């Protein structure tokens, strides 16, 4: 069929041979708005450039990434993403080019800053993938509007304000509500909606403070318009293709990262869609995007089709990751190749192998992305969604229809839902509506957060009251709005009214109604025998067995057996980019209920299933995905076929070439069992790995084992022995190990009994949770009573989540422990093979006990602990691993008071610190662990001894407080950081300095330091103040602290506390008074709920003002030490991981 005509156009040189070395920049720590999707894009980019024979120099401060694996680049720098650090790296490496389009907004901004600082010109580094002019035109909203106007495209009416006066003038033009978009921020930080005149000052002020250029775009509201995104790709020859169209279920007004989105677009005719395509192409051309992936967002008026361009990103984005996973088209990989001179038509489509990458994918399924929120971690945060992104992760689900995909996405979220379930039996909607209402009226910058709201005993409410509350709830976008909407539908609200309240397209409402109607019909049949037709119909609408079981009043197992008996089983279809037009060679699958099965499991070698971590959330993020990817790499090395199961589109694990086979599926028992059955039918399934993906797969260990699926590595029983308090205590008694005194309780009375025995302060936490959810330190009986209620509630949820039906419901359990005040905490990671235990690393926390280990900075190796203590910690770790029969990874947390060590927690699974330890020591522990789980011995793998590097590695955490107006920044036992960075250097001080620089908190070298600390910290405050005074800082202090400093002769400026009246400490932060140095650093520690509330405003204002701060003395002292050492800036040095690791090996 191939025509014989000679090609008569000139063949370009496909790949640029003038470039040898390319600098690839990552996006740094995981923050809201910039998550693991940039590890996916950076990893794809690095692999693609490597395969093309380029020397890749990679920079990223985030150790928990695959892209910073030393194998992926010639040189890997885990260094701060600052102009200073990049300048040194560029001077050292002399790359020919820099590719900034795969590292999110961070990399783009850094590219611009390097250009402005003259670094790129000085060293002759060419920007590839995007020119600085294109970046500026796309990012600067004024230039962007002008560009759109030039090609005849509408943008919202707007103006740029630099102060309040300008803001008032612009708002007079655009009217209310007005949208705020600060320039050069990511995830829409600082953005918001001004509804009326009374909100102008606070909201515009906040927006200005968030913009690095103190500029905010105020624009006409298109609230309620339909929102679309096109993911497009273009090459240097002007070839252009739309990879994916995405429709937001949530209309304009909610940040696209916080919206439920659907691919492909569902409610546009072709004419309307092509109009958007033409507009996207015109925008790309006008902005001057030379090559690569971009994303263009549109608003479409549902009443008349008017189109407005909202924004475009001249780079790979979160949506590109979604589009890649949704279609199978590897945008980042293709973008990297286009940047080095290839044209689209010169690249193949990996999935079909025979067709070209120059095409537009066609998909024959529906994809739903659903964001994952973590508001429970941020009491006081405004729960309303708006133009500033607040979600911490997302899931994606694939189904043949929207209903199926939507319900699969709902159960992938791991928020305790089995689908689009009703919350009516459990939720206190009237209370929730009140929370939303109060949030709308609170002064977020100055009023401390109200007490965490807990669902108290619900008073009986009528349907009318419920409907009123629900109507208020659905009219405001919030994390669970779709559940609220479905419940309002259940209470009889019409689609017309729901459309009026939400502006959600009637097509989506009609689909949701199909789900609700089916549920209603099934509930009416409750108690009757299951019908095969109904079950089949339900499965095709995406209902889980658990949902069907609850309607029928049966157990999940009953429904499963019924399905099996009636041959109602999922089939697997392939994601093939082409709607089956061509044969797909890549086994990238999703389940559905259709007539033909394309899974085609192989039978030629043994296979291992790796269960991923599900959506990113606080406490379970990219670190676990890193471990899962490493398992895939390691097991492939051993010759196993690797099979990944995950539902998170932002990850490397869901790239189709990370494992041999990929199932994009929810991580529930039902879905995982179906895959095990499919893959296990030939008897080649060696087992399933559950210990690398965090709590998500771990909680499937027992039910999977019960279903006869082999669990590789540490047994489900051992996991239980470490988790179950009584078994755990028995083990410690047997081994003669010490832990803080503690007890368990099921209610307030039980908790009081334990408290009387142990005394205060007490650490209270629910059982079976991760990331310190609802963990707190209570100081007295009042606080105990208050918090135990919440902890019981959280424990109940957690247990409901892990329970498989048929099991007897256990009482929710909370754990109460003696709080080790002022203890130093340590984390230990180890790997064991059943015979030998090898310590991965001992990490000493910088913050004292009481701060969650995931939020604390830590140092490896320990910098102040006595050798005897470290040895003892290691010995205890070995004893525990041996006793538990660990095969794989284990993490132990210790508290150290003087020479005494206490075991705080034992987790026989991968921990958050595994990637950090691996990057610090050069030993890939997750890979080793995977091989051990597959039956290899540590000795055979060449790992017999701990590797203790001479260099120092510091991990620092990164917090999302700026994204949550109204949230206190003080740290506690509940984890709230979203990501981490790493600093490596020859001394602790230098490494710590790098780490806090990388975390975005550059330490000041001059100015005023506010010190306001609790009584216990006053002696240390004197040490701190003396150091800072010697370094040339002026000291500002409140009452007690000022007195203490005065007594030892340290000069200080005294300011009033807020309670003492104006001018007070908050005014001092906000305004630099004449003749006095501006505040450059704030050290504020506090204790007890009352004092915390009283000092809320100082911390929030410090955050607002963008001033570096510390809320623990330990971290502040470490910072002072770092300043004394005086490294970064002047004497900073950079070194690659490969060099550090070579040094370790030669020791």
């Amino acid at each position: 069929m191939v025509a014989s005509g000679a090609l008569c156009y000139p063949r370009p040189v496909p790949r640029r041979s003038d470039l040898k070395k390319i600098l690839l920049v990552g996006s740094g720590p995981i923050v809201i708005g910039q998550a693991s999707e940039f590890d996916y894009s950076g990893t794809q980019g690095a692999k693609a450039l490597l395969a093309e024979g380029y020397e890749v120099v990679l920079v990223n401060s985030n150790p928990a990434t695959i892209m910073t694996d030393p194998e992926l680049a010639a040189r890997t720098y885990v260094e701060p993403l600052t102009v200073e650090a990049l300048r040194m790296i560029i001077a050292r490496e002399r790359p020919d080019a820099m590719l900034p389009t795969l590292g999110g907004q961070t990399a783009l901004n850094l590219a611009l800053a390097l250009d402005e600082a003259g670094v790129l010109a000085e060293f002759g580094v060419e920007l590839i993938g995007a020119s600085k002019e294109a970046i500026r035109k796309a990012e600067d909203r004024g230039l962007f509007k002008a560009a759109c106007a030039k090609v005849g495209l509408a943008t919202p009416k707007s103006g740029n304000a630099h102060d309040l006066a300008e803001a008032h003038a612009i708002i007079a033009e655009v009217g209310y509500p007005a949208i705020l978009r600060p320039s050069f921020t990511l995830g829409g930080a600082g953005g918001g909606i001004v509804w009326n005149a009374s909100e102008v000052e606070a909201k515009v002020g906040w927006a200005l403070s968030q913009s690095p250029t103190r500029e905010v775009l105020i624009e006409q509201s298109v609230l309620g318009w339909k929102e679309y995104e096109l993911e497009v790709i273009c090459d240097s020859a002007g070839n252009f293709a739309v990879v994916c169209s995405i429709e937001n279920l949530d209309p304009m007004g909610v940040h696209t990262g916080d919206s439920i989105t659907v691919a492909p677009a569902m409610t546009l005719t072709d004419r309307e869609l092509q109009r958007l395509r033409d507009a996207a192409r015109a925008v790309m051309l006008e902005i001057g995007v030379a090559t690569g992936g971009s994303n263009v967002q549109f608003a479409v008026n549902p009443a008349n089709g008017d189109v407005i361009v909202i924004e475009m990103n001249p780079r790979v984005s979160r949506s590109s990751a979604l589009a890649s996973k949704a279609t199978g088209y590897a945008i980042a990989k293709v973008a990297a190749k286009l940047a080095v001179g290839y044209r689209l038509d010169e690249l193949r489509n990996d999935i079909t192998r025979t067709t070209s990458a120059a095409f537009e994918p066609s998909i024959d399924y529906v994809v739903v992305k659903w964001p994952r929120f973590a508001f429970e971690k941020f009491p006081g945060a405004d729960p309303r969604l708006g133009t500033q992104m607040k979600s911490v992760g997302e899931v994606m689900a694939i189904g043949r229809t929207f209903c199926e995909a939507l319900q699969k996405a709902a159960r992938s979220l791991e928020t305790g839902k089995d689908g689009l379930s009703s919350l009516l039996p459990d939720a206190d909607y009237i209370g929730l509506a009140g929370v939303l209402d109060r949030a709308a009226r609170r002064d977020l910058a100055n009023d401390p957060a109200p007490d965490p709201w807990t669902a108290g005993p619900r008073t009986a409410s009528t349907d009318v009251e419920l409907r009123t509350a629900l109507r208020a709830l659905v009219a405001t976008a919030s994390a669970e709005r779709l559940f609220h909407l479905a419940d309002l539908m259940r209470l009889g609200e019409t689609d017309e009214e729901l459309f009026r309240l939400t502006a959600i397209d009637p097509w989506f409402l009609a689909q949701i109604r199909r789900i609700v109607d089916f549920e209603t019909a099934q509930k009416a049949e409750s108690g009757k025998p299951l019908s095969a037709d109904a079950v089949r119909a339900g499965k095709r609408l995406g209902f889980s067995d658990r949902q069907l079981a609850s309607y029928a009043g049966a157990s999940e197992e009953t429904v499963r057996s019924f399905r099996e008996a009636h041959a109602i089983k999922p089939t697997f279809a392939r994601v093939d980019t082409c709607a089956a037009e061509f044969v797909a060679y890549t086994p990238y699958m999703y389940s559905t209920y259709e007539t033909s099965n394309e899974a085609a499991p192989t039978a030629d070698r043994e296979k291992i299933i790796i269960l991923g971590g599900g959506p990113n959330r606080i406490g379970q993020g990219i670190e676990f995905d890193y471990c899962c990817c490493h398992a895939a790499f390691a097991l492939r090395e051993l010759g196993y076929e690797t099979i990944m199961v995950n539902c998170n589109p932002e990850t490397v694990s869901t790239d189709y070439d990370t494992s041999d086979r990929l199932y994009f599926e929810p991580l529930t028992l039902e879905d995982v069992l179906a895959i095990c059955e499919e893959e296990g039918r030939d008897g080649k399934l060696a087992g399933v790995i559950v210990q690398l993906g965090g709590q998500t797969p771990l909680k499937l260990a027992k039910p999977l084992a019960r279903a006869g699926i082999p669990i590789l590595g540490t047994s489900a029983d051992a996991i239980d022995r470490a988790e179950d308090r009584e078994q755990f205590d028995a083990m410690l008694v047997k081994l003669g190990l010490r832990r803080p005194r503690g007890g368990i309780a099921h209610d307030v009375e039980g908790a009081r009994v334990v408290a009387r025995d142990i005394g205060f302060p007490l650490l209270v936490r629910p059982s079976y949770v991760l990331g310190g959810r609802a963990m707190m330190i209570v100081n007295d009986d009042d606080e105990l009573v208050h918090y135990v209620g919440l902890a019981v509630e959280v424990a109940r949820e957690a247990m409901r989540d892990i329970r498989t039906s048929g099991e007897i419901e256990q009482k929710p359990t909370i754990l109460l422990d003696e709080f080790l005040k002022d203890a130093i905490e340590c984390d230990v990671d180890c790997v064991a093979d059943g015979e030998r235990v090898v310590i991965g690393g001992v990490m000493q926390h910088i913050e004292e006990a009481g701060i969650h280990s995931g939020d604390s900075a830590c140092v490896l190796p320990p910098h102040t602990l006595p050798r005897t203590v470290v040895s003892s910690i290691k010995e205890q770790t070995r004893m525990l691993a041996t006793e538990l029969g660990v095969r794989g990874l284990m993490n132990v947390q210790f508290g150290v008071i003087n020479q005494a060590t206490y075991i705080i927690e034992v987790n026989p699974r991968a921990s958050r610190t595994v990637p950090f330890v691996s990057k610090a020591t050069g030993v890939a522990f997750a890979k080793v662990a995977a091989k051990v789980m597959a039956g290899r011995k540590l000795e055979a793998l060449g790992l017999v001894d701990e590797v203790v590097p001479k260099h120092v590695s510091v991990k620092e955490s990164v917090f999302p407080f700026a994204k949550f107006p109204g949230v206190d920044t003080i740290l506690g036992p509940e984890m709230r950081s979203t990501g981490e960075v790493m600093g490596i250097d020859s001394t602790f001080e230098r490494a710590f300095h790098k780490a806090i620089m990388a975390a975005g908190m550059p330490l000041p070298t001059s100015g005023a330091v506010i010190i306001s600390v609790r009584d216990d910290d006053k002696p240390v405050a004197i040490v701190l103040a003396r150091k800072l005074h010697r370094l040339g800082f002026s000291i500002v202090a409140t009452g007690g602290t000022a007195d203490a400093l005065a007594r030892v002769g340290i000069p200080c400026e005294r300011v009033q506390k807020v309670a003492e009246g104006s001018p007070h400490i908050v005014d001092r932060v906000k305004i630099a008074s004449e003749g006095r140095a501006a505040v450059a650093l704030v050290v504020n520690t506090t204790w007890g709920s009352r004092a915390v509330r009283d000092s809320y405003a100082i911390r929030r204002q410090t955050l607002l003002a963008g001033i570096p701060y510390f809320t623990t003395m330990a971290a502040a002292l470490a910072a002072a030490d770092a300043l004394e050492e005086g490294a970064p800036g002047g004497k900073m040095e950079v070194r690659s991981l490969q060099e550090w690791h070579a040094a370790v090996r030669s020791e």
Partner: protein
Amino acid sequence: MRDRRALLALADGTTYVGHAFGAEGITTGEVVFTTAMSGYQEVLTDPSFAGQIVTMTAPQIGNTGINKEDGEDERPRLAGFVVRETSPVVSSWRADESLDAYLARSGVVGIEGIDTRALTRHLRDSGAQNGAIGLLPDDNEAARVALVRRAREAPSMEGLDLATGVSTREPYTWREGTGAWHPDAPGAQPVERAKAFDKRVVALDFGLKRNILRCLVDVGCEVIVVPAKTPAAAILDLRPDGVFCSNGPGDPAAIAYAAETVRGVLGKKPFFGICLGHQIFGLALGGTTTKLRFGHRGINQPVRDLTTGRIEITTQNHGFVVDLEGLSATAKLTHQHLNDGTVEGIAHTSLPAFSVQYHPESAAGPHDSLYLFQRFIEMIEQA
């Protein structure tokens, strides 16, 4: 929604159970699939689908209903419509009626609930073939067998003249452009008034898509549409500036008269052909056509313009292709399919005449190839 079990039976005996929608009855035709994710209304009304049962690989169909503007002909011409799921509502500010009502009113038999992916894979692997859709009361085996028989008895697409039947009976003049839907960025002016209807083009209608006419008007033409069997002399009598030969259904080899007509205008007037018009042009130059196994149907098909090297994402709907062998003396290859290398465009080596296999007017599909209408105008101006 009505719930009537229905069956799609293929000539090879494969059957797919679903539910009937649209018109009631039995239909037969060649079962094909299109991978277009948008534009089902354009697909339904594209006369090139006459005699075919069209499968949409996109699963959710009917969401935006049917409107007055987007039809490519006044009524649907296809033989049947196969989808995974129809929409319970219509959601579009332009919609006038639902898909179901439109098909029922237009006499088109539809079937939904079909595993369209399995069907598509089957057609891909075993080739396009005839099929029949009919009701299947009570899972009746006799009905099943009867439908398979109907599928086998349906006439083969090869050698079938379907174009003559869908052509206009009477000549008419067309002066409507794309107007508000002009593919330039919103706000840009379409053709300036002074140039409007500047050129007269006669279009031979073999199953013409309206958007071709709109695109010709956009570049300054007034179009006189004439019936398929209009002889060359009658066309030339209309004193056109250029002659256009349209798309259409069926086997190009079955309408030998058309090649004769084209030979009669070649060299006398600039010529442009699309799809079937391209195949007729190839035949007129002494070439041959062959049938592809399952054709190119979709709006994501990459084509290389060999003069510039640029890639266009094109709309395609064809089961036959022109073979280049035998054309080397008179025509050169101008456009080629990027995936399978098939002929997508040719131009006469010396005369002002060219054609493309794909649909530059898109509808549905991207607007990457509109330059071809401008190229036709330039050819006319240079003639």
